């Protein structure tokens, strides 16, 4: 448990998706919890490979957004037409709801879209201009054709030397780097 906070963690590089998936599974099965993988494209099964047990909060965020949009949209039209600015035209009803459906629909979509976009960014804690992984020179390639696995130093099993040896022993590991703060 030495050097817990001297580094952010250790990073290991791979050259293919399959190597990354195997590396993640091995690391997870060795008992590491605080691990994250980085890839240039979404990889099916990677979240399971790093042992991520997340809940689908995005879908709920979007649902709530859509509901809010629908209520706001309909409420706005009903309130302005019946309370704020009532116009009696030939005795027709003030809350003529069928005519309010198109805008209610558009508002539902609008707020749901905003919830999806800003919800995704918020759950991912973006924008985040600084992150320690960017201190590794080779990490530039994570947006091109290389794959990285990071074991964070806050992991209970983390030990700078032993973990490094463990990571170097992963199949087809290209290199292991310190992730400085």
């Amino acid at each position: 448990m030495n050097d817990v906070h001297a580094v952010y963690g250790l990073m290991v590089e791979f050259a293919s998706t399959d190597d990354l998936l195997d590396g993640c599974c091995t690391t997870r099965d060795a008992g590491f919890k605080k691990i994250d993988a980085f890839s240039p494209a979404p990889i099916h099964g990677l979240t399971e490979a790093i042992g991520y047990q997340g809940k689908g909060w995005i879908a709920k965020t979007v649902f709530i957004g859509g509901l809010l949009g629908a209520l706001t949209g309909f409420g706005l039209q009903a309130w302005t037409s019946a309370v704020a600015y009532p116009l009696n035209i030939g005795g027709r009803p003030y809350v003529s709801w069928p005519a309010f459906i198109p805008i209610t629909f558009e508002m539902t979509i609008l707020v749901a879209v905003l919830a999806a976009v800003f919800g995704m960014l918020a759950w991912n804690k973006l924008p985040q201009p600084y992150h320690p992984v960017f201190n590794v020179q080779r990490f530039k390639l994570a947006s091109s054709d290389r794959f990285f696995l990071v074991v964070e130093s806050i992991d209970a099993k983390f030990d700078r030397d032993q973990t490094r040896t463990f990571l170097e022993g992963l199949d087809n590991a290209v290199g292991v780097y310190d992730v400085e703060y």
Partner: protein
Amino acid sequence: MSEAPDVLKPDPVIGPGHSYGSITEKIASIVDTGRQPKFWWVGFGVGFALLQLFLVSAVWLLWKGVGVWGINNPVGWGFAIINLVWWIGIGHAGTLISAILLLLRQDWRTSINRFAEAMTLFAVACAGMFPLLHMGRPWFFYWLMPYPNTFGMWPQFRSPLVWDVFAISTYALASALFWFIGLIPDLATLRDRAGDRVGRFIYGTLAMGWRGSAIHWYRYEVAYLLLAGLATPLVVSVHTVVSFDFAIGIIPGWHATIFPPYFVAGAIYAGFAMVLTLAIPIRWMYGLQDFITARHLRNMAKVMLATGLIVAYGYMMEAFMAWYSAGPYEAALLDHRLFGAFAHIFWALIAVNVVIPQVLWFPQVRRSTTALFCVAMVVNVGMWLERYLIVVTSLSRDFLPSSWGEYHATGWDWATFIGTIGLFLTLMFLFVRVLPLISIFEMRTLVPGDSKGRGGSDE
């Protein structure tokens, strides 16, 4: 699932021999080498010159008033609404490709969705110019929005014109966000490849610190799929609402229930024609035949053929209902369209929008880029004629012959319209210059033998 024999398998959606690295290099280098082919300068130059024409006509319009256009009583809509509907329709193919084809798991959409979405965005920008300028005093555009004001007034929410404001602004905003979300991982690629501080700063700011973490990708994919699910009904609703502008009115020739589906099909028809108009020169210009393959062009041609037939059915039903309804005004309007003052436009429309596109039945035509480009241009013109016919004939020939009138577009009408084509081309060429015109990260997922068919770790 059993393997299909080789002859039955469709062509691959990406040329052979590509890897993550080669895809990144091929697409990102268009942006970051900084040198553009001659064709780019020609295209941008033409677009930029036409954009100046747009600026001149907009300034003249604001100086003199909307009287510089050919609009009059009874034809109060004229070019402004024709062009609005034309541009909005063009935009629809972008959303169709990016959202509906994503939900239908059509992986051939991947290489065309980015610039099709850009096309949507710029087409909506061009479309937006017309209602704004048509107001004559565009600085009061915010009167369209519901906001508490000292007049104590609110918009009339029962009017399709107000629905239109909501539909189009929602569409513009949703398309922009969908496009931007799709760009984030590619902006990170450009940030990491940027050679100078300026590029790193600009792309870095826009990428917002994207680092491709597995958990981020997971949330990203959920959000992207949900956005596609939301954009799908949205795109259908937008042209439906645009068609309500006509169909809710009681003017002969407009008051038809066929309008919403027929408008949506027409929008997709026009949009795919515009995607082909752009894709064919772009793939030739940048040598992207490996990514935008012959199969892509063939599929787009088939979508055009199918939606074109729906549009033809729309024309037929319009005419049939006018006759079958036995309404004298509807019948008279049909007579005006088919045999009267507007007959030349009607029959030209039938020729370019219904007859000529039937050549797409022939595989030889779908395989030839030149032929496809020509058909796409013909459809672009045809869909504009369709809107001209709908707007002008109905308004100039309504119930009372005493209120009939003629409509003649002025030079400024044409200058404004051609000017927006300049705005569109300028934006499109700038986009190609500064952003990756094909989604890099989505193309990576198409690399055979990688990240496909491999389940979770427990297999």
